[in-house]
């Protein structure tokens, strides 16, 4: 098998592992919620079994060993040896975590950590009380197999034992087909599963093996027969061969002894077309719920499609503009044609954008694990509540959110949630709560993580900030402003550095990560009640509703979501506070006035004539200002083009777009503009961003 094909199959295997793990965790949650539906246990078993099978095909020894142990325990539970109670469930969850780690190690090629694996395996085995299921090569007590002797076993020899064990026993004959070997399976592990059952006289029948000249190595000639004593029923036996169902011929006879006579037909010598060694996840699994039909697509292909659709939007817009300028613009057919074209383009755009979106559920599941680990290491009991799991976010954004959210959870544990005794003293329930919710709202995705801990201690934050020189000792800051200080690098109110946090590299990294995704993050807190962090992200990364404006002779685009209103400037309302700062009063509110041309270093529009227009900008963090421009042109949907990293440093410019006339126009980031104006201002005492 060529290496390329192997790589593809490997990739497929790990993708399937991810799905299987998700299913596993789902079912474990159901189990731990108290449901003892046998189907739940079966699904868990099958997930692990499938993971194990594929792992065996690729030679991931540790993974196979662990999965095997896990599987054994589940099997024992399935046959009613013990019940799943709280402690057992906890152990299963831990085992699932270890399994997930082993899969990751196998995927990355890193060495798995031996200790947690052995510990968990030992704990699992303790449940079952069996000896180490580690040796996959058990010793049977079969009759000796001499290759020279090709005669079937004497029926007589079996007859004796038959008499002794007649009632309630099952005679089983298991014949692998050629396909079984070709798909990389091996009868040995399957037969070794029989160990816990009481198996008597397991014999390998070699009567069908031809002489060496006629022997075709790829065919299957061997059959195993054995008698299973009372205690195991037919269904259980059949289930052991479940995963190779279809690849073998299995005969189970009640109340009989396995005998050579069961070999009435020679085993099927199937010369079915060679199957690639696919992981057994392709073996028939009967899911409880119908799986939605999906297609796996390379992310590159989707990106290309998204780009092309973006081009289409630009092209359509350019076409419309050009046609508008000509005489055919009046032709009714052309007008309707163009309108249809525009509508179709928008529809395609919307559809394509949703392709990359995935539900946040997988992210929330991972965070659940973070919560458990943090709870274990800090000793604080916490209930993790999630809402809006089905909310969909662009896949890349989802991946980038994992780290910031993990950090926020650790912060909640370290700083927010108090120790149990403090909570009880404050009249709060012993078990703390962390809530994580996701929802779509007005064209954005809003994520909120809140805890019911102690809230932000503003006095300490203030003190630390003064200490680090971020603010002056005399500065008066509102509560919201103090909360925002947490986003400064190097600020941490932890008195000790813990494993989880405290090094002071936290919230500013979170803020930058969120901003890199085009989002905003804010903190709200009530002392004694709790803290909540809000993240607002754009729904799509590529298209934006924009306001086309002109400043300093150039065209720029402003995100429509930031604009509250537009108005004309009258000189009388403007006040100049210093050489750099101007303010304007709008309906009683005094706001900083920023000239866009000046802020971008392109020349100041010094004439505050009546024809100057201004836009009232409202940022997510509720800082408003007025932006002065030459004129406001149009409102349009634009395709966001990333800037070459070398050009991205310009303050105030976040990206670029291509207008209908083919010219490049920069997209303004209002918050960056405001921050930039503040750093150069000496009057406003806000901390520099």
């Amino acid at each position, binding site marked *: 098998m060529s290496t390329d094909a192997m790589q593809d199959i490997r990739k497929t295997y790990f993708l399937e592992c991810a799905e299987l793990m998700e299913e596993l965790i789902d079912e474990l949650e159901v189990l731990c919620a108290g449901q003892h539906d046998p189907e739940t246990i079966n699904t868990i078993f099958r997930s692990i079994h499938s993971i194990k099978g594929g792992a065996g095909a690729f030679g991931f020894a540790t993974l196979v060993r662990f999965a095997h142990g896990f599987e054994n325990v589940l099997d024992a539970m399935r046959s009613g040896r013990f019940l799943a109670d709280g402690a057992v469930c906890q152990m299963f969850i831990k085992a699932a975590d270890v399994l997930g780690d082993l899969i990751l190690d196998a995927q990355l090629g890193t060495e798995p950590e031996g200790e947690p694996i052995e510990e968990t395996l030992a704990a699992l085995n303790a449940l079952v009380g069996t000896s180490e299921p580690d040796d996959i090569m058990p010793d049977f007590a079969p009759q000796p197999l001499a290759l020279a002797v090709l005669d079937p076993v004497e029926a007589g020899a079996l007859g004796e034992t038959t008499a002794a064990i007649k009632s309630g026993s099952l005679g089983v004959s298991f014949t692998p087909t050629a396909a079984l070997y070709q798909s990389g399976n091996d009868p040995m592990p399957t037969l070794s599963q029989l160990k816990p059952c009481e198996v008597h006289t397991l014999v390998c029948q070699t009567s069908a093996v031809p002489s060496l000249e006629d022997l075709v190595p790829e065919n299957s000639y061997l059959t195993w027969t054995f008698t299973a004593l009372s205690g195991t029923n037919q269904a259980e036996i059949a289930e052991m061969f479940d995963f190779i169902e279809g690849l073998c011929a299995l005969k189970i006879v009640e109340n009989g002894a396995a005998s050579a006579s069961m070999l009435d037909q020679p085993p099927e010598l199937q010369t079915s077309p060679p199957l690639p060694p696919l992981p057994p996840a392709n073996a028939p699994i009967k899911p409880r719920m119908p799986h939605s039909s999906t297609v796996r697509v390379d992310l590159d292909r989707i990106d290309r499609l998204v*780009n092309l659709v*973006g*081009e289409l939007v*630009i092209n359509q817009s350019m076409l419309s503009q050009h046609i508008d300028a000509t005489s055919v613009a009046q032709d009714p057919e052309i007008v309707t044609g163009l309108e249809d074209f525009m509508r179709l383009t928008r529809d395609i755009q919307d559809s394509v954008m949703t392709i990359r979106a995935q539900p946040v559920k997988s992210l929330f599941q991972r965070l659940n694990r973070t919560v458990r680990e943090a709870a274990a290491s800090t000793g604080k009991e916490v209930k993790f509540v999630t809402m809006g799991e089905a909310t969909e976010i662009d896949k890349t954004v989802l991946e980038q959110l994992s780290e910031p959210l993990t950090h926020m959870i650790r912060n909640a544990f370290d700083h927010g949630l108090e120790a149990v005794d403090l909570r009880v003293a404050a009249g709060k329930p012993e078990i703390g709560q962390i809530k994580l919710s996701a929802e779509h709202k007005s064209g954005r995705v809003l994520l909120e993580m809140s805890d019911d801990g102690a809230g932000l201690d503003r006095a300490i934050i203030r003190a630390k900030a003064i200490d680090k020189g971020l603010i002056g000792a005399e500065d008066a800051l509102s509560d919201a402003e103090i909360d925002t200080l947490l986003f400064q690098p190097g600020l941490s109110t932890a008195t000790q550095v813990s494993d989880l946090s405290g090094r002071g590299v936290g919230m500013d990294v979170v803020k930058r990560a969120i901003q890199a995704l085009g989002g905003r993050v804010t903190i709200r807190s009530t002392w004694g009640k709790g803290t909540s962090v809000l993240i607002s992200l754009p729904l799509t990364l590529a298209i934006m509703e924009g306001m086309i404006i002109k400043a300093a002779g*150039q065209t720029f685009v402003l995100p429509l979501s930031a604009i509250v209103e537009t108005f004309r400037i009258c000189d009388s309302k403007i006040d100049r506070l210093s050489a*750099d700062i101007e303010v304007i009063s709008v309906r009683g509110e005094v706001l900083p006035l920023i000239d866009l041309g*000046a*802020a*971008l*270093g*392109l020349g100041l529009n010094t004439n505050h004539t009546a024809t100057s227009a201004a836009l009232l900008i409202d940022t997510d963090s509720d800082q408003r200002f007025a932006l002065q421009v030459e004129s406001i042109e149009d409102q349009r949907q634009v395709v966001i*083009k*990333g*800037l*070459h*990293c*070398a*050009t991205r*440093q*310009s*303050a*105030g*410019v976040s990206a*670029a777009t*291509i207008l209908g006339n*083919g*010219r*490049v*126009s*920069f997209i303004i980031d209002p918050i960056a503009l405001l921050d*930039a*104006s503040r*750093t*150069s201002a000496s009057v406003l005492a806000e901390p520099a961003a």
Partner: protein
Amino acid sequence: MSTNASPPSKHALDYLSFRVANQDFCLDISNVREIRSGSPVTPLPHAPDYMRGVINLRGTVLPIMDLARRLGMAHAPDDPRSVIIVVEGSAGPIGLLVRAVSDILSISMSDLRPLPAQAGQNGIAFLQALALLERGLIKLLDLEAVLAAHPPALGIAPHDD
């Protein structure tokens, strides 16, 4: 079009020769993606003076670097006949603005001469080597040097409003 008359040797590489201000340079052609005529540039706010701005290259936003300014030469007023050489940088394509493009030259290792060991001059810092050809001395541009210093330099653009 003049052709290089030196006998081709084993390690001859192709170089694109072009004119910047009033001097000739050349560039390894494997780095060149395309050559196009200059188009109106959208100026980039807060950029160093050698970054003229960006243009629309078939849907991609392409930054344009004025090579004359970058190499520290006295820059001529904007010439509408100028040419943009699109090269592949480590962070994406960049367009180099030059006066004109001349030839494709085949230069072999034997034609190369080392640079004089004079430190400190801007123009020399961006050169990789010199080549002595029939038509005269030609300077080989070090593309990495031209592009490499350029991101960090942008980062220190002051707020001068």
